[in-house]
């Protein structure tokens, strides 16, 4: 048996787009292994998410529903994933390296006594052997690794695996038993979720990202938002801009924030520290606007504009608008 299990991510009853990247991996891995892939949806009130998952070409959609799974807690979800993987003789468990996947999957791996290859950007197959390419040292080196345990656990970088599209067929949906959690689950309690609401596209999925740095100060939104609006872009930020409170923390792009690889990335008033580059170097076209001609961001930019951002960005916004008539 050499089947793949995709751990879906659901929020507010709906399937998150992160899931589709893991499915893309699963299609490649299952093909190499000569097996099939299933998608596991966990939660409470996740029928809609399961129905959506059923469009993604899986052999089965497995649903673990229980009141105790209504809010995500790794201590409760990990046993569910591990139990399904064991019971069904799964060879590879995969999820996406979103905040959710990064929290959950290493716990799953430990529970299964499995090796874990995290945040991979490529799958290299040779017959039925799977090797994983993963970035290290803030993306300054890539390692090719394999996992030596009977069950392997993998998380994929969302920007490196294109979202799978619907297959046409409907997968059968099957309810599965919910494994009993360990003692850890009794000692953790969800208190609250302070959500940053935004009507913009999600950073990791956007085709265009406009990011601002420390230089923007209190004018962050005043300068960045209009440009993002004309470009239909997601807004990102450097760590310095987040730390100073000019932008919310979850917009941070970089080694320790979100990894993005849009068609167009515009870096405004960002110096280009190595940790920032790690999060956006994979973008197709990079534009940098910085008043310092020697700023390291220009080393990765396809188009660099040496200018004061406070005049250049409003001008750019105006001209893009005009060019579109």
């Amino acid at each position: 048996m050499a089947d793949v299990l995709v751990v879906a991510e659901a929020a507010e009853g709906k399937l998150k787009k992160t899931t589709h990247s893991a499915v893309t991996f699963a299609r490649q891995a299952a093909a190499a292994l000569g097996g099939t892939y299933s998608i596991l949806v966990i939660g409470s009130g996740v029928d809609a998410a399961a129905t959506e998952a059923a469009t993604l070409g899986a052999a089965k959609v497995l649903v673990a529903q229980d009141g105790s799974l209504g809010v995500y807690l790794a201590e409760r979800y990990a046993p569910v994933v591990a139990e399904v993987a064991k019971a069904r003789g799964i060879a590879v468990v995969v999820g996406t390296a979103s905040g959710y996947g990064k929290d959950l999957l290493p716990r799953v791996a430990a529970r299964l006594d499995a090796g874990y290859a995290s945040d991979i950007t490529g799958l290299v197959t040779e017959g039925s052997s799977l090797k994983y390419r993963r970035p290290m040292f803030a993306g300054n080196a890539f390692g090719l690794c394999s996992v030596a345990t009977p069950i392997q656990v993998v998380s994929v970088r969302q920007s490196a695996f294109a979202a799978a599209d619907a297959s046409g067929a409907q997968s059968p949906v099957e309810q599965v038993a919910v494994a009993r959690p360990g003692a850890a689950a009794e000692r953790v309690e969800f208190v609250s979720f302070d959500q940053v609401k935004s009507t913009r596209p999600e950073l990791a999925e956007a085709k265009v990202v406009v990011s601002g740095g420390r230089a923007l100060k209190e004018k962050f939104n005043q300068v960045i938002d209009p440009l993002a609006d004309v470009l239909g872009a997601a807004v990102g930020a450097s760590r310095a801009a987040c730390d100073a409170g000019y932008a919310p923390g979850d917009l941070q792009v970089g080694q320790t924030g979100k990894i993005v690889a849009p068609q167009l990335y515009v870096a405004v008033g960002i110096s280009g520290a190595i940790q920032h580059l790690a999060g956006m170097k994979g973008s197709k076209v990079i534009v940098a606007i910085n008043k310092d001609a020697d700023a390291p961001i220009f080393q990765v930019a396809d188009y660099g504009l040496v200018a004061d951002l406070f005049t250049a960005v409003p001008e750019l916004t105006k001209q893009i608008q005009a060019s579109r008539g």
Partner: protein
Amino acid sequence: MKILVALKRVADPDNANKVKIPPSGDRIDTAGLEWKPNPFDEYALEAALRLTEDGKAPKARAGEVVVVTFGPKETEQTLRAALATGADRAIRVDVTDDKLDGALVARALKALVEREKPDVVLMGKQAVDGDSNQVGQSLAELLDWPMATFAATIQEEQGALLVGREVDGGVAVLRVRLPAVVTVDLRIVAPTSVYSLKTARTHKYNDGVRFAALPAIMASKKKPLAEVKLADLTADSGLKVQYHGFEPPPARKAGIKVKDVADLVARLKNEAKVL
């Protein structure tokens, strides 16, 4: 409160673009780069110090902070530096990086936790050389302990920690009853991020980690530093993840500087075709 902090030394992360990969591709060469503590682990240590003190009198430690590293003899320097900033005791598990993977570190840490019986294990969310982001979560599972990963705030409560976690789309707050594992994110060292029961909520820390004063550096030489053999912690020293080779990242071709905004718009439209 007794806290165990896992601390790894890494090749200078601010110069990670200077790592080299030999043509054979058999390793990542960090020669010439200085060793630094993994920044997230430094933050974990700072959080541990804040949790075991009254912010006003940081020298009177309310509890114990034990730092542990897995590494060769030279990593004792990293441990000494941690002792100088305020940790009470250090443990070095003798092993080299190439003989470790995240699962093995977690396995060995579990045995160490069973010996040391800390109330909290604090560590960085990821080591910025391997960028794996797994040891904390794996350790929590092996111990069957609750965890709070990617912590941006920690507030001590009676027998518990209230932790604000950086997640996609905002901040999620968890309460974990002790003992527990907490992994920290960048903003844990902001001025109002960590409070022990003793520290007044009005207290503001300096932004970032504290530095050791010269007398403390001298005094740290007398603090206990123990060496432990990996084999004493786990009989199974096998690696679950094996590396077969390394490559440099794909090179980006050099870009150009545009004349002005009009030039930029024209090129984005006609050349790059992204508008």
